């Protein structure tokens, strides 16, 4: 008969392997669902194994926790695809909350018999956990628009933030050396809780993809630290995987905005935004009606659609799908060019377009589509702005200079669906709109695309 402890360890070991396979299978859409199943099986094994642990005397509390968690978790798994960014931020907050609470309990159970090394990882666990908790709640609030989305900046912000972080670390150092100073512990939680709020206050909507990725990384690292404290290899590995995933995504997002981490976190953008807003000038633009746009699109061989957050806001993705169908039916080659930071989280546009039933092999990332732009007849920009701004390539004085963009200006005709000539999120004027080959299509994205579709399908009725 195998001892229970050994059996539990074996379930953890199998879970670890399944978790790694789960992420490996996620690399391609063809195997990705297998990855989810592997993750689910691993999770079920690990939880099942843990429930056999002999030390558990109070199954009632465990059962209450699991049932309540399911009651909250099911609706969170069923949110609309447009709400996925705030759901993700919220789940980072929950993960961090769990880690912080466990870390807090462990401290009070063990103090003052804690070695300096153990206290160091425990401090890392609760500091990262609590700042991720409030930071993610703030991010979720901004994304859900219950909090103002606009970045809030004030003088000395970075000084205040860094000071708070330094204070929390200083308390951690004191606790490492004197773990009997139990009364200092609450401060080590409260200060990072405030820091998390302050960290996200200066961050605006367009920076959300980077911030969500960064919070994802913190959540993973805090869980890994919890693994150190509990000496659980499974948790260390899961935390390390989550941490590196978040880190990789943050690097991709910052690169796609040509900004460093520190720049995103210590908010250069708020100030630049104010500076750029003043220099706008009125220049003539050409506009077109839905009928004219439909005519140009129907005559094209190759069309690239560039969606942005505006498409998500207008809920235009299903109309875009109708446009895709109408054009494909006429033999037009339609692909989508997707910038890494389009939307409010990594991969946001892909999920929305996939939900609208657009085949994933038509969704191309920036590096794959830019080479085709010169052979493109029409580039249709829907609700995207800064990621198409050619000033990023040409104007060294532009705040977004150096940011990799989708080269829509290289297409023969550019059409931009936009509500008005108001500047984009970053408040930067877009020279794309004044180019000779650019036509502005003024209106709500959903209605305008709908009108184009009506022109296209209505016109073809006679041929059937």
């Amino acid at each position, binding site marked *: 008969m195998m001892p229970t402890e050994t059996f539990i360890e074996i379930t953890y070991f199998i879970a670890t392997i399944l978790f790694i396979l789960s992420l490996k299978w996620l690399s391609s859409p063809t195997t990705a669902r297998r990855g989810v199943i592997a993750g689910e099986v691993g999770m079920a094994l690990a939880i099942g194994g843990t429930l056999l642990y002999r030390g558990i005397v109070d199954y009632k509390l465990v059962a*209450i926790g699991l049932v309540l968690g399911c009651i909250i978790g099911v609706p969170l*798994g069923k949110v609309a695809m447009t709400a996925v960014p705030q759901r993700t931020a919220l789940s980072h907050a929950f993960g961090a909350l769990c880690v912080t609470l466990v870390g807090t309990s462990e401290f*009070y159970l063990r103090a003052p018999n804690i070695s300096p090394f*153990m206290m160091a990882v425990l401090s890392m666990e609760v500091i990262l956990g609590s700042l991720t908790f409030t930071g993610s709640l703030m991010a979720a609030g901004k994304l859900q628009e219950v909090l103002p989305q606009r970045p809030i900046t004030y003088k000395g912000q970075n000084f205040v933030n860094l000071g708070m972080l330094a204070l929390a670390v200083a308390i951690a150092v004191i606790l490492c050396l004197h773990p009997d100073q139990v009364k200092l512990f609450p401060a080590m939680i409260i200060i990072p809780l405030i820091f998390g709020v302050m960290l996200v206050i200066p961050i605006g909507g367009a920076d959300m993809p980077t911030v969500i990725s960064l919070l994802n990384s913190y959540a993973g690292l805090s869980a890994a630290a919890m693994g150190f404290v509990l000496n659980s290899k499974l948790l260390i590995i899961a935390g390390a995987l989550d941490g590196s995933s978040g880190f990789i995504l943050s690097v991709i997002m910052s690169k796609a905005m040509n900004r460093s981490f520190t720049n995103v976190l210590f908010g250069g953008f708020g100030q630049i935004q104010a500076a750029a807003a003043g220099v706008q000038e009125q220049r003539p633009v050409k506009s077109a009606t839905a009928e004219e746009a439909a005519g140009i699109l129907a005559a094209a061989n190759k069309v690239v659609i560039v969606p942005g957050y505006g498409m998500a806001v207008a809920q235009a993705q299903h109309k875009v799908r109708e446009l895709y169908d109408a054009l494909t039916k006429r033999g037009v080659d339609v692909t989508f060019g997707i910038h890494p930071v389009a939307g409010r989280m990594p991969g946001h546009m892909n999920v929305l377009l*996939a939900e609208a039933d657009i085949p994933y092999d038509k969704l191309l990332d920036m590096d794959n589509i830019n080479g085709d732009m010169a052979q493109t007849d029409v580039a249709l920009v829907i609700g995207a702005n800064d990621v198409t701004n050619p000033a990023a390539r040409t104007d060294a004085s532009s705040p977004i200079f150096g940011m990799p963009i989708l080269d829509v200006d290289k297409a023969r005709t550019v059409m931009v669906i936009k509500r008005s000539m108001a500047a984009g999120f970053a408040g930067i004027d877009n020279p794309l709109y004044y180019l000779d080959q650019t036509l502005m299509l003024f209106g709500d994205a959903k209605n305008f695309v709908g009108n184009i579709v009506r022109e296209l399908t209505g016109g073809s009725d006679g041929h059937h």
Partner: protein
Amino acid sequence: MKLDLITSLYVFTLAAFIGFEVIRRVSPLLHTPLMSLTNALDAIAVVGAIILAGEHKSNLAAILGTIAIVAATSNIVGGFLITDRMLRMFKSSGPKKP
């Protein structure tokens, strides 16, 4: 005790490297499901919370542990559900397999 932490450090470092290599290969197409899946896997922290609440060594630990179970379980359930929902939407334009 100290030896455990060193071993843990090895495990963490190796896992981080595996994470980098595996996740680097994930297509940008799937970055949103990647985030929701890693988030669900990360909620394995629930095992620590289960032990904490179940051992009931102090009332504080039992209460905080139970709240932690709720938070982590909702991430597990919600995370797997939404990841699967998203992945089901990704369809190829090629011939469909039954």
